[in-house]
């Protein structure tokens, strides 16, 4: 996708997959940390937040992409923010209508989706330069990647901190929950551990590729 020019305009599987893995918002770009850490005390909260962000991301990127030739360059950021805020307000009311319990659990963090750097970042870096369909697909991939990242955090924190997953108890009554995991420090630690894991994995893979290349050259 790094190829310049027309190559970027084409819709391909990679447009979608980019956000899932190579440019994963949570683990690779480390964007949108505030909602990531604040709401991931349980898997359900994490999934709701992920879905809400995905909805906002997809619709705003689509609209911004549609308007990309109409919006003057000087006021584009302001325009993007107003567009994003509009969709966030809609999602805010949507969640309130669907489940009041979830709405209370997520609190102000639903409205704070407005300032999630992923959305403004994608609007500026991708949607404003690509046709609507490509922008929409890419946003969908990014949203999915973000949701997976949130879920990975929420699941680990709920399993360790409450001994359950989706509210179902996993270890029986004897389990002593590791309460710090659902408190603020736990969020930092779990995300740090995930990043360590990915860095280690990348390094191993990189090392192996280097060795393979060396052997190739040797032969």
């Amino acid at each position, binding site marked *: 996708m790094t190829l310049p020019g027309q190559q970027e305009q084409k819709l391909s599987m990679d447009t979608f997959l980019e956000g899932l893995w190579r440019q994963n918002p949570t683990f690779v770009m*480390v*964007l949108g*940390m*505030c*909602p990531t*850490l*604040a709401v991931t005390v349980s898997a359900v909260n994490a999934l709701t937040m992920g879905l809400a962000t995905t909805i906002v991301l997809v619709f705003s990127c689509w609209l911004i992409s549609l308007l990309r030739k109409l919006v003057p360059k000087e006021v584009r*950021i*302001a325009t993007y*923010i*107003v567009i994003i*805020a*509009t969709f*966030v*307000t809609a999602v*805010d*009311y949507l969640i309130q209508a669907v489940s009041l319990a979830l709405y209370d659990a997520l*609190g*102000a963090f639903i*409205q*704070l989706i*407005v*300032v*999630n*750097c992923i959305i*403004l970042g994608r609007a500026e870096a991708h949607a404003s330069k690509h046709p609507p369909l490509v922008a929409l697909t890419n946003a969908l991939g990014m949203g999915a990647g973000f949701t997976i990242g949130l879920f990975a955090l929420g699941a680990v924190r709920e399993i360790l901190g409450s001994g359950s997953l989706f509210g179902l108890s996993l270890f029986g009554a004897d389990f002593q929950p590791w309460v*710090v995991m659902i*408190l*603020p*420090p*736990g*969020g*930092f*630690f779990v*995300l*740090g551990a995930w*990043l*360590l894991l990915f*860095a*280690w994995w990348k*390094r191993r893979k990189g090392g192996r590729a280097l060795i393979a290349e060396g052997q190739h050259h040797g032969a």
Partner: protein
Amino acid sequence: MGHETISQIVVSALLANNFVLAMFLGLCPFLGVSGKLDTAFPMGVATTFVMLVASLCAYGLNLLLSAFHLEFLRLIAYIVVIASAVQLVEMVLKKYSPALFRALGIYLPLITTNCAVLGVALFQTAREYDFLQSMAFSFGGGAGFTLALVLMASVRERLQLSDIPGVAQGTALSLMLAGILSLAFMGFAGMGG
């Protein structure tokens, strides 16, 4: 109506419910600008100033919007006000301290998307603080943000000279550090109510 006294609100926002370490607001600049003490402190002060202005405007706007039953416009109105306040700070800094302006770079306009700023406006509305309480809340929050940023920058400056495993370098290390700081701040729990 919130019933906390002014000092309770300040201490709570500063320590017990520190914006960065307990409420996870404003993490992007926290991880991004905390590399050096020289930039961390001014960044904290600039953010605090924006917070105060935003809180002031948000309070007035909320009264206005409530009077006309336009609450659904609240979010959009707040974000526009914050963007303007950031623009103001940017112009002031550019005029009076160009060096600092360059040092803060991209993170200065990014104060707009700092959740701590919008967070102040949203939380003070949700908790129905009156005017003085709102001001105290935004001041405590800003000071807490500055405190966290300065602490983090001091630790990271020291770590530059130490031997860290290659895998742990970068964001993973910063997050672990933040976790430990956050653990320390949990000791303040219960203070300020």
